[in-house]
């Protein structure tokens, strides 16, 4: 693995952590006060900081550090996570995301915003911590110098520390003086009580103690009182704690910094000792023996060893071994002392060894449970999907030819084929499921949009998301973000009123935007509802008249007026704002939804808000289509476009002008469009009475009756690109392969309807030469 790959993994993890962070903050925002939520939020920031440190991403580290410090205040209940605090935090999460992106793509960051937030965060950490009980100097002033980088490796047993460790200058200035630590240095008693989580996360007590030993002269005692008899021993539990006496010039702060990356998984108590107190220690001090710990480290988990090897590397030469070598003889006796405690103790008391080994196993388990996912290149999945698509076609062709040759249909081949059919279908479903992803990431992005727009417009808005785990094809998700962003902006900017107006109307001054997703009959339904003013029909109507979209005397139903906002070039906001008045309107949204094979509709109640309902296919790879025959050719018409099908009667066909014909359907006249003629499959118009009319609704909202010769049936077809090897063909959206192995073209209904309006559908390939 080269550095870039590792970095890429780091950024992918960052994305996950950022999502975790945001969802945690939102939970807190909703009043969740579960300490686990706070911890999760804290961990997310912490992990980003750790990883960023390893890659030397200083901007990210320093911001994450400030953020983390403030979060720490929340974690230790020094800061109440009220709405105001969370607002800052959510903004900070956004900035953190920006910084991460900047680090990845070199995008620019709004530095003033970052600086502003740093100040706000620092103010929160300072201002809201009145007495700062316990450890006054620790929380607010986490030693910035010691904070970043190397220790991060221990905290983050991610791939980063495998080999991606980047040495960062990190020296213990007084290391060389250690044996002759000045007597004037204060003495501290450090009680270090790991919890099983510490080991589960790949930290190791031995390494922490060794780091502690580097601070100065140290003796350490292992307290095994908690160790149960062997039969009651839970190998994944942590039973030991250590009491160390350290003489150091670094002070309590320095000691705490050793445990910084493990502090939430262990209990640390640092107490200053008087000189005489030191002598009264109840336990016999065992000289702290790094050799033992080193040995244990090696025995336990290789990867941990790996860690500290690397850490050792840049602590300029083997740091601990030298001074300890002298005490080698003592080491043996010490080991014996430890071993002699009891037979039971010994098993586990090969000191941290067993515990650490167990922890490693546990960590593995945890990793298995949490990470039952693999990252796979999308290309590979697509290739598989393609192959399965071909398999399905092949299977269908095989079935067909067997049926043709097997008159009575009872042979065992037939039975086998049926099973094969079932299997291929299952394979297809499972393969499609690989691409299915929850809509959560998109929804999460929306909460940021809501925040930003609400901020800009001075509105107070709460976004409620439902059904975030609804799964849909990745392509759909990717393409959903843009229209959804636009709609959310619209909802916040135009839909929801200002707090004053809301209050005047007796509504909750805080507006609500509800975004939900659910599956319904093989499609995904996404609803976006706001409780704002609803559509002002008078204004929409006036605007439509001004823009020549409708005539002044047009008689439109409420629903029709509401749908006018989807008309091209329509924008109702009185002032063109930064947020939604970008010259593109809901027509763009509608088009992008339709491009996804979806539909969008709006329901609005004045004074109570509007609801947009989008119905999208679960995947873009297959399409429900009606297979029809036109002039001897087989075509597929997307089912989403078809409103109804009917058999025209001669009496309902009316000629109109030279070549146009209209069909009357329930007293309204609808232009009749001969698909075969439009596509140039035949020279003259077919007789409508001999064919079937498909009533379709197109982008422009108008209805057309498409004439085809016959309907063959309805089926799901796999969409194949024509553009890959050919070019875009006007009137044709794509191609597909039917059961007989032949290619059928999928009709582009909108283009055909547009062509029937007189817009040219001329061939775009000019004959060369």
């Amino acid at each position, binding site marked *: 693995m080269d550095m870039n790959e590792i970095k890429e993994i780091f950024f992918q993890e960052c994305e996950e952590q950022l999502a975790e962070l945001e969802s945690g903050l939102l939970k807190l925002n909703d009043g969740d006060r579960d300490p686990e939520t706070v911890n999760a939020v804290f961990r997310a920031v912490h992990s980003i900081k750790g990883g960023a440190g390893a890659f030397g991403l200083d901007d990210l580290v320093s911001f994450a550090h400030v953020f983390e410090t403030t979060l720490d205040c929340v974690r230790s209940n020094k800061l109440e996570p009220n709405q105001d605090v969370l607002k800052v935090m959510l903004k900070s999460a956004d900035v953190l995301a920006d910084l991460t992106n900047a680090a990845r793509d070199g995008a620019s960051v709004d530095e003033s915003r970052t600086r502003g937030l740093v100040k706000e965060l620092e103010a929160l950490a300072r201002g809201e911590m009145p007495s700062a009980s316990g450890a006054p100097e620790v929380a607010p002033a986490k030693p910035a110098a010691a904070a970043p980088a190397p220790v991060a490796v221990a905290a983050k047993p991610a791939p980063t520390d495998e080999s991606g460790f980047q040495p960062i200058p990190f020296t213990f200035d007084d290391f060389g003086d250690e044996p002759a630590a000045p007597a004037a240095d204060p003495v501290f008693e450090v009680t270090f009580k790991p919890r099983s989580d510490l080991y589960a996360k790949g930290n190791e007590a031995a390494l922490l103690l060794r780091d502690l030993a580097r601070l100065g002269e140290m003796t350490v005692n292992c307290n095994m009182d908690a160790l149960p008899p062997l039969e009651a021993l839970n190998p994944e539990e942590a039973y030991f704690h250590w009491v160390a006496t350290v003489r150091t010039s670094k002070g309590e702060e320095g000691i705490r910094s050793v445990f910084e990356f493990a502090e939430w998984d262990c209990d640390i108590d640092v107490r200053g000792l008087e000189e005489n107190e030191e002598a009264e220690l109840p336990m016999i001090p065992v000289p702290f023996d790094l050799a033992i710990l080193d040995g244990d480290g090696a025995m336990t988990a290789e990867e941990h060893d790996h860690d500290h090897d690397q850490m050792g590397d840049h602590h300029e030469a083997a740091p601990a071994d030298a001074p300890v070598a002298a005490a080698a003889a003592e080491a043996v006796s010490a080991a014996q002392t430890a071993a002699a405690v009891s037979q039971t103790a010994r098993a586990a008391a090969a000191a941290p060894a067993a515990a650490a080994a167990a922890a490693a196993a546990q960590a593995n388990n945890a990793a298995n449970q949490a990470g039952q996912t693999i990252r796979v290149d999308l290309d590979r999945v697509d290739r598989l999907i393609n192959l399965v698509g071909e398999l399905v076609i092949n299977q269908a062709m095989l079935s067909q030819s067997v049926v043709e040759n097997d008159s009575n249909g009872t042979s065992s081949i037939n039975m086998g084929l049926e099973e094969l059919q079932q299997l291929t279908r299952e394979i297809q479903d499972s393969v499609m499921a690989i691409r299915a992803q929850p809509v959560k990431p998109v929804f999460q992005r929306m909460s940021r949009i809501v925040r930003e727009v609400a901020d800009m417009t001075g509105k107070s808005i709460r976004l409620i998301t439902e059904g975030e785990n609804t799964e849909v094809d990745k392509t759909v998700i990717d393409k959903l973000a843009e229209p959804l962003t636009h709609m959310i902006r619209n909802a916040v900017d135009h839909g929801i009123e200002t707090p004053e107006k809301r209050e005047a109307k007796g509504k909750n001054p805080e507006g609500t935007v509800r975004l939900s997703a659910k599956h319904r009959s093989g499609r995904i339904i996404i609803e976006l509802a706001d409780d704002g003013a609803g559509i002002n029909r008078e204004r929409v109507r006036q605007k439509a008249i001004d823009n020549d979209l409708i005539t002044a005397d047009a008689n439109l139903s409420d629903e029709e007026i509401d749908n006018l906002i989807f008309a091209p070039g329509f924008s109702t906001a009185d002032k063109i704002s930064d947020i939604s008045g970008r010259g593109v309107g809901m027509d763009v949204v509608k088009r992008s939804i339709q491009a996804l094979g979806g539909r969008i509709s709006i329901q609005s109640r004045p004074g109570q808000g509007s609801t947009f309902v989008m119905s999208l296919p679960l995947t873009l790879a297959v399409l429900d289509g009606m297979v029809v025959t036109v002039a001897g050719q087989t075509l597929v018409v997307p089912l989403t476009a078809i409103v109804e099908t009917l058999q025209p009667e001669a009496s309902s066909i009316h000629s109109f002008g030279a070549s146009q014909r209209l069909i009357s359907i329930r007293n309204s006249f609808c232009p009749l469009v001969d698909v075969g003629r439009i596509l140039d499959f035949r020279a003259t118009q077919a007789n409508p009475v001999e064919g079937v009319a498909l009533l379709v609704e197109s982008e422009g909202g108008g209805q057309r009756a498409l004439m085809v010769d016959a309907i063959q049936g309805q089926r799901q077809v796999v969409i194949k690109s024509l553009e890959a*090897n050919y070019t875009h063909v006007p009137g044709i959206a794509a191609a597909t392969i039917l059961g007989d192995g032949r290619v059928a073209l999928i009709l582009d209904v909108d283009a055909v309807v547009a062509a029937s309006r007189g817009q040219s559908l001329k061939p775009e390939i000019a004959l060369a030469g």
Partner: protein
Amino acid sequence: MSYTARNLTAGDRELIAFRIGDQEFCVNIMSVREIRGWTPATAMPHSPAYVLGVINLRGAVLPIIDLSARLGMKPAEPSARHVIIVAQFKNQVAGLLVDAVSDILTVTDENIQPVPEVSSDLERQYARGIFAIDKRMICMIELDALFPDMESEAA
């Protein structure tokens, strides 16, 4: 068959020769993916006359070009005896309908003669050289020059 397996030297080209009517043409063997029999193609609306339609090539949609028509000769009447040369040019793959594949040739550059000045634009556009083998005349054509528009449209 005059093909002999030998190491190609710098000036050598390996070519696939095929027949359209009574004329012989060839293309660079490196651009040929496979050769297969004719299967009925699905007609494409609004396509130039030389595009016969599209066929299913193991799941991919492959346009079929009537090379005879494309080169300005009599349009082919595809039958089971016709052959499709699946060729790659630029980033696309297309099938070229020809009467038959006749030979695989190795030709050195010095044997290739420039295209004589003729009045037809089309010939000047696609022909890259001519050479004689066994008293036959074979015209080397440049696939990329045949479909200048397809790529720009697809891009």
